[in-house]
């Protein structure tokens, strides 16, 4: 399974940084899929089919990892040998912890009140927060190369992603 060790940025021919050219990512993803997708190897040998399956799988995994800012940040840290979601990495600034609890409470209240507009409002708020953290991350990773601070910011982003997923699910269950 040598393809699994591939550096995802190299796979797509992109520089290893937080700010990425999403169009190049998309175009190169499609090129790799065009060359490796199992549909291209239906009557090939077992080996070639296996290679195709592995490459197409890796490309899908890599694409979804780099497309999403939170997982992209997490992956960039992994390349630096930092596990952003390790249990030891629990320190969060006090004000973010407070903010976190507030969002959770809002989510639970809106869920209990079956208030879909409130949930959507909260989602918008979180997305705005996410945008501003992404701007920070671009500076921390690409200019300052300040990985400890990037780890903190990435953890915030991962947390916001999680709350968004929960809001998403709450709306779905209310409908």
């Amino acid at each position, binding site marked *: 399974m*040598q*393809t699994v060790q591939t550096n995802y940025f190299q*796979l*797509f*021919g992109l520089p290893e940084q937080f700010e990425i050219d999403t*169009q190049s990512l*998309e*175009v*190169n993803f*499609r*090129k*790799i*899929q*065009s*060359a*490796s*997708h*199992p*549909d291209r190897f*239906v*009557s*090939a*040998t*077992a*080996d*070639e089919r*296996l*290679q*195709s*399956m*592995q*490459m*197409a*799988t890796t490309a*899908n*995994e890599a*694409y*979804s990892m780099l497309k999403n800012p939170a997982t992209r940040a997490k992956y960039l840290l992994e390349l630096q040998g930092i596990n952003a979601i390790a249990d030891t990495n629990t320190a969060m600034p006090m004000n973010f912890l407070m903010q976190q609890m507030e969002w959770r409470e809002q989510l639970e209240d809106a869920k209990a009140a079956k208030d879909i507009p409130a949930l959507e409002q909260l989602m918008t708020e979180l997305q705005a927060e996410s945008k501003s953290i992404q701007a920070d991350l671009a500076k921390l990773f690409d200019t300052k190369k300040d990985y400890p601070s990037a780890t903190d910011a990435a953890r915030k982003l991962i947390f916001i992603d999680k709350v968004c997923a929960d809001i*998403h699910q709450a*709306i*779905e269950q209310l*409908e």
Partner: protein
Amino acid sequence: MALLQISEPGMSAAPHQHRLAVGIDLGTTNSLVATVRSSMSTVLQDDHGHSLLPSVVRYMPNGDVVVGHEAQAQQSTDPVNTIVSVKRFMGRSLNDITDKAHIPYRFVDGKDAEATRTLQIQTRAGLKTPVEISAEILKTLKARAEKSLGGELVGAVITVPAYFDDAQRQATKDAARIAGINVLRLLNEPTAAAVAYGLDNAAEGTFVIYDLGGGTFDVSILRLSKGVFEVLATNGDSALGGDDFDHRIYCWVLDKVRESSTNFAPLSEEDTRLLLTKARQAKEWLTDNFEAQIVCRLSNGTLVDVALTAPQLVEITQHLVTKTLTPTRKAMRDANLSIEVIDGVVLVGGATRMPHLRHAVQDYFKQEPLTNLDPDKVVALGAAIQANMLAGNKNDDDLLLLDVTPLSLGLETMGGLVEKVIHRNSTLPIARAQEFTTYKDGQTAMSIHVVQGERELVSDCRSLARFELRGIPPMAAGAARIRVTFTVDADGLLSVSAREQSTGIESHIAVKPSYGLSEDEITDMLKASFNSAEIDKKARMLAEARVSAGAIISSVTAALTVDGNLISDAEKQLIESEIQRLQLLTATEDATAIHNAVDALNHATEAFAAARMNASVSRALSGKNLEDIHL
């Protein structure tokens, strides 16, 4: 017209040969088969000029099996032995069927005590599984195609509802196997429709495919760009379709009849089928008319004579229309899109002819839906295009389909909770691994329960398989590291493997035996479906071994010519000597030895295949394509 040359299935044909491949839409109400001829996708007709084959199978008193219009004509007189809408039962157990009382079949639960076993139907030809009944429909379509095309099929693409779960997909593939069809790919119906629509209209942009068939509802959102069809999200309801509208009308008629007659006896199986047929006809009539008259005489002499108006139909079925909008909203949210960015909404499936349904779709998307392709045929036409490409025929449109898994896949953890391993709407193929650990000290086995669905509790999801990983060395609780890998292939089928990391003890399962048919059952059905004289197992095995030997020799030889420079001379010589050995063995009668030599050659080319794949990806990335620069 010159005779077309047909190679044996699985054999790689010379480049100029056209390989016969078809797309099959195995529908709830009707089924179709289409193929690409002279670069045009065309639906194949039967001798009477019918394109649609009613998905109706009748087991005759003389032992024959009749499929299609002839069977449909007898459904009210012989309802118990005439199976309609069998697709609703694919990959299902008796527990899954909620409206048993209104279906005129004699259901029998699967053999095993476990309630998850696939259901069976008692007919005069014996117990039949939905897989076998579907295989009869597929056999008829295969025969139609081979007659019309004048040769044996290399394979077929068979469409399934996007929202079909693993058990339903596997059941469809099993049915094809029993019908003697080589499945090139299972393709999601809305994706097939998108291919037909997109290529026909040179469409680019973001499209919604709203597909309401006889028994299933799918909605898919796709991005179409330069021949790439990328599914962004899919959702649906695999138990909602045109049949439910018929059923509503049927219930409404019964209520009317009960109002006017004081002692109304329960309906016979014949009457149930008759009234359901009348209900369907009324629904179709109301597409273009204001009022439908439902008239028939029941077996007890009661005369049914009621009128149903279009507004009444809207009233009694509006909740079903609304029910399709919930999955639609979910798909839009999963794709993270708002309705303003949708470039078009394509309607698929006969049920989308209903005016009130069209209005509801139009109201939701704030644009008029696209209906310029026949909603009954578009799925088969799209499947044929993919089949043509997969069979290796030269294609003007270099298309690539990137589909997704419709439902999340996970494992049961402590407390009956689901840990999702693969999330819905992940692009296929996909592999994901998750590590688990032991709960008790000295625990040596772990029970792995694979489920599919979105809910948090195992009991709310569909159970796909259970298997055990044994032989874990006794360790303290939490010390073992068990890595469970889920793999979903391009057909949307799941396989799961588990491995204890420190010892390497491994267990693997194609998710199948605990749901659906076992390998033995399929073999029995296969045997039963061939005439005993026709099949000499040994001869067939030898023929198959030779075909696969021929295929691998020609493909490896071709690869060496093109990419031989990617490996060292020593590696090259090793491969060449394996080819020679295999060539010599092909002349013998020893199927096992040929198989082993094929495996050996496969093994010898592993590194070469990997090097070729990497080279081909690098070529794809560095290839300067002017169009792509502007994208």
